[in-house]
């Protein structure tokens, strides 16, 4: 049975209806944080052991350091001869709790490993970045990249990663750079790791 709970509308008094008390209260909270943070900067500058102040990053020109353990978007690894390591065994597809990996296997007749992925697609919008695919892979073919966090796009289709995209050496390229939308910012993984260590 559905129980219905009636919620009475809150009636404001005439004084409350002027909104002045709430306006001032809001101003007070904002100013409190501003001066608090300001005080922390000054405190740090004079050598006091106060809490770390909050910093605004000018994203995307300026980037926040990422923890070394961060793992983001997937990539597929290559063998030394340039063929994908993936043998389309479907282990990642089976392990995936979100069912966001779609592999179609094909038969290679060129004398290499006989089974290879004809299509390997990941729907990032469904992915929960749990990393089970990486763990399940018997060939170390799928990895998740560290070092960048920006997964942006203007359409759903951009989050549907296909095999060729995943096979690109994506370690040094950010998502948006690959799409050719944000030029001029090159942050290498080494840099990011160094930054992360520094902090």
């Amino acid at each position, binding site marked *: 049975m559905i129980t219905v709970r009636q919620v009475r509308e809150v009636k404001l008094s005439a004084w409350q209806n002027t909104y002045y008390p709430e306006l001032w209260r809001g101003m007070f909270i904002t100013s409190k944080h501003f001066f608090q943070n300001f005080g922390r900067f000054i405190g740090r500058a004079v050598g006091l052991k106060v809490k770390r102040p909050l910093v605004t990053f000018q994203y995307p020109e300026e980037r926040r350091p990422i923890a070394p353990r961060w793992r983001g978007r997937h990539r597929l690894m290559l063998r030394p001869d340039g063929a994908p390591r993936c043998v389309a065994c479907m282990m990642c597809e089976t392990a995936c709790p979100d069912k966001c990996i779609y592999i179609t296997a094909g*038969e290679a007749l060129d004398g290499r490993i006989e*089974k290879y992925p004809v*299509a390997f697609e990941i729907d990032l919008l469904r992915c929960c970045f749990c990393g089970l695919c990486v763990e399940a892979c018997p060939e170390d073919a799928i990895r998740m990249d560290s070092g960048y966090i920006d997964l942006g796009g203007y359409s759903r289709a951009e989050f549907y990663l296909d095999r060729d995209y995943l096979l690109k050496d994506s370690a040094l390229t950010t998502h948006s750079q690959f799409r050719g939308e944000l030029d001029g910012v090159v942050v290498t993984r080494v840099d990011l790791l160094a930054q992360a260590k520094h902090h």
Partner: protein
Amino acid sequence: MPLLEIDGKPVETPAGMNLIEAARLLNVEIPHYCYHAGLTVVGSCRMCQVEVEISGRKSIAIACNTKAADGMKITTRSEVVHKLRQSVLEFYLQHHPLDCPICDDAGECDLQNYYMEHGLHDSRMPLAEKKHKHKVMDVGPNIVLDSERCVLCTRCVRFCREITGTGELGVFGHGRDAELLNVPGKILDNDYAGNVVDVCPVGALTDKDFRFKRRVWYMKRTASICTGCSRGCNIFVDWETDRRYKDPQRRIQRLKPRYNRLVNEWWMCDQGRYGYHSVDEANRLLSPKTKSQSNGHALSVDEVITKIAARVESAIEKQGPGSVAVIASASSSNEDLFLLNRLFIDKLKVQNIDVTFGFEAKGKEDELLKKSDLAPNRRGALELQVKPWGGEGQGGDDLIAAAIEGEFEVVIVVRHDLSTAMSEKDFAKLRRNTGYIAYLSSHENGLTEVADDVVPIAMWAEREATYTNFQGRVQKTARPFDPAGLAIPEWEVWKKFGEIAGVELNFSDVRDVFNAIGMHFESFKGINWESVGSGGRMLNGTPEPTYKRIQTSTPLTAY
């Protein structure tokens, strides 16, 4: 009747039964590779070793070649047995490529299964010293051999020598060079070649048709029967519909034979095995078709059936039941034919019905499984008396001839593609001379093009049904998935037809229809849906056939 003890449990077995089968009576599995109940015992894999204690003396014996004897005490699980199996497995894995990720058998592989239980999980064999053999060998039109994966159990060799008598495979070489290969000059191309994949306990022999299509753990398994010929082999339908992106036109992944001692034992023919492709063919008929005006909106199946019923009724009213002919099919199930009988013969008094025609395709008959009659339910049609036309000396062909000559105003065709059954001239004549042709079809063909109204009907894997095979055995098909498009089972067409024509056919589902057959036909009396078990049930008055091993009369000598 020897009385023995297996793992402390007493069991009485028939005389001459070996220990693997005896253990199966207690649901104890003794691991084995080379033993197969349908083939001779060679005792080469040594995997089935168990401890046997007889009159106080303990020894090790292979279970496959040891007959159960009175007073035996068998231990299938002990330290000693475990050690033995571990050693045997280590030997098999010595040169095994361990390419389970790309092996189609992974998931149903005995090597994997037994290794999980008994394996020595740390290989003592250096990787560089592994012996490499041939991979991806084309041994026949349907079969791929990977001899690195082979454990040399010779099941496939024995199958080809004993069951089909063709002997295409053999083991060549000695020691670690021993390899399964084609016998020189022979390719594995017989009508039962697909069975070697089923008997192979590992992934050495794989099916080209199934190769890399799905992993086995994705598939669901439904027990059904093959409707490829009048034998009705018992099968498993392995199907998968979740991953449509892999191959949208493929709901059934493969068919596997299901053991039935008196029908097909462990085997099935390749024609049946690969015949499932027609279920998802590109030319499946997905929606009804009509030649008359449909007011521009999408046509529903009910509307088309209404049109057919109205046309049949008006023809009977004006010219009598003699103006209607039904070219029925022995490929229809018992339920379809029963309702056809009730509707046309009983109620509408239409007598121009037949199911046997000269144009029907004839298959190749052999001494194993294949029957020349490709209609799965001719016996059922006979029992359900859907063959009253013409009397002495006349048959379906005369009905067709009469239809061509224009003797009927309305012709209803079930399943048969008449455009390929007769000459082009005759077909055009039939079309010209007949006022109205209604057609029930699962596929688009020449007749769907010219028929007035066409109803799409479901195929065997899309509906539940029973079929009566040539022995008189009633067997069930299952319904793993829904019909393609707007197709409906044939019996539903007749039910809806009956509703419109004012004939009461109050059946809620196909089981109801089947259970009602017994009320009208003596041979079906007392047989209901539940009593048709997984192995089928014989018709009343038809005795079970005597058991005859399915085997060629000219087997090659034991391997």
